[in-house]
């Protein structure tokens, strides 16, 4: 069996989590791996629970959904309450402390608590790039995709004219992860 990672990015509709999942899956392909991305969301354009799932591996991926993520991002209290128990033993949970205030007891997983949305808002000046800050943090903490591939995939999937903003957001996420890794 080759190496396999299963990620679940969860939060609220409008936080850009589906796009974030697409960018990670795209980056994995740029890294020469196989990947698949699926999503689950409500009918609302904004609000409502949203989750984006990515499987990265060297082999064929049959069942495309994630049951027990080894990387779990939670960007809302609701998502945290719903998915915290799903995390795989030895997995990594990344918590956006901007919106998640109560954390259930997590056994067998490493939890990183970082203010993702607040960093986007205060350091970059736009909360809309919170998903990209999250991407930087995920890549730094887990190493599931390379920084180069992630940057390429990001730049390929954002509107023209927002390159600088997104680059900065990615770097901010990377730096934010450094603060909890050391």
């Amino acid at each position, binding site marked *: 069996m080759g190496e396999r990672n299963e990620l679940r990015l969860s939060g609220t509709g409008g936080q850009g989590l589906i796009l974030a999942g697409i960018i990670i899956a795209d980056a994995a392909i740029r890294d020469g791996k196989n990947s*698949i991305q*699926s999503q689950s969301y409500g*009918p609302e354009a904004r609000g409502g629970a949203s989750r984006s799932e990515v499987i990265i591996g060297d082999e064929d991926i*049959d069942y495309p959904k994630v049951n027990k993520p080894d990387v779990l991002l939670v960007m809302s209290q609701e998502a945290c309450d719903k998915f915290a128990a799903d995390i795989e033993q030895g997995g990594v949970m990344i918590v956006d402390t901007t919106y998640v205030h109560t954390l259930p007891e997590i056994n067998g997983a490493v939890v990183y608590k970082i203010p993702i949305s607040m960093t986007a808002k205060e350091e970059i000046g736009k909360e809309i790039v919170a998903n990209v800050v999250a991407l930087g943090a995920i890549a730094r903490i887990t190493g599931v995709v390379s920084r180069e591939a992630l940057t390429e995939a990001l730049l390929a999937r954002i509107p023209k004219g927002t390159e600088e903003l997104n680059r900065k957001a990615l770097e901010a996420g990377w730096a934010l992860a450094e603060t909890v890794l050391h």
Partner: protein
Amino acid sequence: MSRVIEMARLMQGNEAVAEGALAAGVRFFAGYPITPSTEIAEIMAERLPRLGGKFIQMEDEIASIAAIIGASLAGVKSITATSGPGFSLMQENIGFAAMAEVPIVIVNVQRSGPSTGMPTAPAQGDVMQSRWGTHGDHPVIVLSPSSVREAYDLAVRSVNLAEKYRVPVVLLMDEVIGHLREKVVLPSPGELEVVNRVEPDVGPEKYLPFGAGDQGVPPMANFGSGYRYHVTGLVHDPKGLPTNNPVVAEKLIKRLQNKIDLNLDDIMIDTGKNLEDAEIVVLAYGATARSALQAVKDARKEGIKAGLYRPAVLWPFPQQKVGALAENARAVLVPEMNLGQYRLEVERVAGERTRVVGVNRVHGELITPEEILAALREVHKHDARS
């Protein structure tokens, strides 16, 4: 870096359908966007004008299918995309296209129903509707992909079959495959077989618009090309004129169905995994087949001789293949995101020879490999006892 890796890209199922349709020569799309098929309309709206084609957002789905029938009659390969609620509205004109022998492709990305159901949740509840949704005996071909690459291939094939047999073709997706993004390498344009309708080889004065050729498929003159003829949903004679003549009527309705029934070798496609020595066959299609494949692999590890049979053409029903599988299997397991629509058809063919068991979910989420594996274990245990 090899060429293959360079060309590999992350693509969505709905995007693959749009790209496949364009590669097959589709140059007209009329539709009314609906989740979970909306991306197909979005992409066609952007791409078609650049290719000299046309995109129209219609007032509803009845108008959408009417528009693609008109465009197809004028000689342009045409497609629409919808989901359950829109598919219901299209039924009347699917019958018209079948009767008037107009090549069209309807993509139905299934969501949970009935009615507006759960718009963003997957289901496979339109399987019977895709075969029998419109009234009267009629020909229709229904294809169901299980991967993004296959969504591309079957989109091409849907257009080809519609053109070749002058029938409505339904590309029956589900939300999981429609919204799934995975790594694909698309074929280069030269690798694709693209079929165009057969046009008449006689002048307008000798042309019989519904006079059948060898395959039972009449050559089709495009409107505006100098051929004038009558197109109707009424029973009609070879000239296209309405009639109540019982001899003509019986001949027509049987010919329409025979276009499919006499060409099964050309139409049917399917795949299998571990079927050679399978004691329990899992028969699955669409996204469910991915869970089934995982379950079959896991079952083998436990010593359960399971195999997967996956029809990519759901209708016409793969009667011969299912009959042959039933000869050797102790049971056929049919997982579906509905309450057993296709299972009933499997039972019709296999029920006297083997046990047919359903695994059914209608909660708006994809059936998991664990659920199918649990059913496999149950069937295995049952067989061991008896």
